[in-house]
């Protein structure tokens, strides 16, 4: 049975000369895939960052798996449930396996188990051939795939993807789309901020639109 993973009520956020979010309300069901559309600069990234605890909201209520979250004191435990992936993901300047293992390490997953999960994630993302290539030498698409593997391996309660296919060439975009599609089978709740028509048109994806500071379902 499906249940709401995330519920937002009356979320507001202003910047000095602009009221960006004016009372955002929506709920995400467990295992669902959602795409958040809206014009450039309408607040999609800000909304995702607030949900991920990377930015503070001015007011509103957030519930995660039924529990009310004080947005003024974002709980550390919630950071282990939500993963946010930047539009241009940052990979630590170490190695691909180390990048994918990072979040597992933060969660205290034992080394052997970690190695196994990293291996599976590398195979899932199809980045095994990259071996020990340093992250700064990877293409945008390869970085995106490693970042998706790094997020997916944590089996997050909610995965927040910010424009995952922006600035990618056709091949890279197709590979990234295939991974996003594959996430559906992993039972991961995903929220994607995107303009990509192909993501918006995915049959299983529910569409939310941010306009004039409010979110409505399409």
């Amino acid at each position, binding site marked *: 049975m499906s249940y709401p993973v995330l519920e937002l009520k009356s979320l507001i956020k202003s910047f000095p000369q602009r009221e960006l979010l004016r009372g955002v309300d929506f709920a995400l069901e467990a295992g669902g895939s959602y795409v958040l559309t809206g014009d450039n600069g309408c607040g999609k990234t800000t909304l995702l960052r607030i949900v991920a605890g990377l930015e503070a909201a001015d007011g509103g209520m957030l519930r995660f798996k039924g529990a009310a979250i004080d947005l003024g004191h974002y709980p550390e435990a919630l950071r282990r449930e939500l993963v946010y992936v930047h539009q241009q*993901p940052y990979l*630590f300047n170490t190695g691909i396996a180390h990048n994918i293992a990072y979040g597992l390490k933060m969660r205290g997953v034992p080394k052997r188990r970690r190695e196994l999960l990293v291996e599976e994630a590398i195979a899932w993302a199809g980045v095994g051939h990259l071996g020990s290539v340093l992250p700064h030498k990877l293409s945008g698409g390869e970085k995106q795939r490693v970042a998706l593997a790094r997020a997916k391996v944590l089996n997050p309660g909610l995965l927040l993807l910010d424009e995952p296919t922006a600035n990618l060439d056709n091949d890279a975009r197709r590979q990234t789309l295939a991974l996003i599609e594959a996430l559906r089978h992993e039972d991961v709740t995903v929220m994607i901020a995107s303009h990509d028509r192909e993501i918006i048109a995915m049959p299983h994806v529910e569409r939310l639109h941010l306009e004039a500071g409010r979110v409505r379902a399409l």
Partner: protein
Amino acid sequence: MELLEPTREAFRLLFTGDAELWRIIFISLSCSLAALLLIGPPSVALGFLIAKVAFPGRRALVVLVQALLSFPTVVVGLVIYMLLSRQGPLGFLKLLFTPEAMIIGYMVIALPVLVVFTLSAVQGADPRVYETARSLGAGKYRAAVTTLFEVRFGVMAALFNGFGRVVSEVGCSIMVGGNIAGLTRNIPTAIALETSKGEFAQGIALGFVLIVLALGVNVALSVLQGEGGMK
């Protein structure tokens, strides 16, 4: 001035393991490294905090730390001398003219170098580093460590520059160390003393060691950076 003979004598002293000469080198290295070990972690942490945390007076603190960079080391020595002298507030510690006093002086001298270099390295870091670490479940402290690791070459440059500054420092060493043979006589104070006596051989040998140290530190930094540091 005859240069060849003192130079030949300098290398003889170096390569025959002259006890006095190597004792001076040991004092220099041990005091410099001890100071860096003690002041390195808090300075790096302070540099990180100034770079990342907004607080009232941050700008003034940055200006102060930057100003301390150009603070004459002899004045640092004078202040510490006054604090540690018998009539000073810390005179009861009886640290004046000891290696410990020199280490305290070196810590004060190295602090602004370490803070400013770390601050600059962290400010230059991609803001996504810290956010990515946090988003992947790292706590604040762990995310800070991850950020510092990402700018590790900048932090290493801070440490190496701090070392370079204290190992070649004269004013403070003489003021608080007293240039006591076998106890607080280090490379720069020995060079100053021997040169003033017209004894150039030991000065040349020690100067050579300082140059090798300076070059070695830079070569080590460059090797450590390797490919990882060249984006």
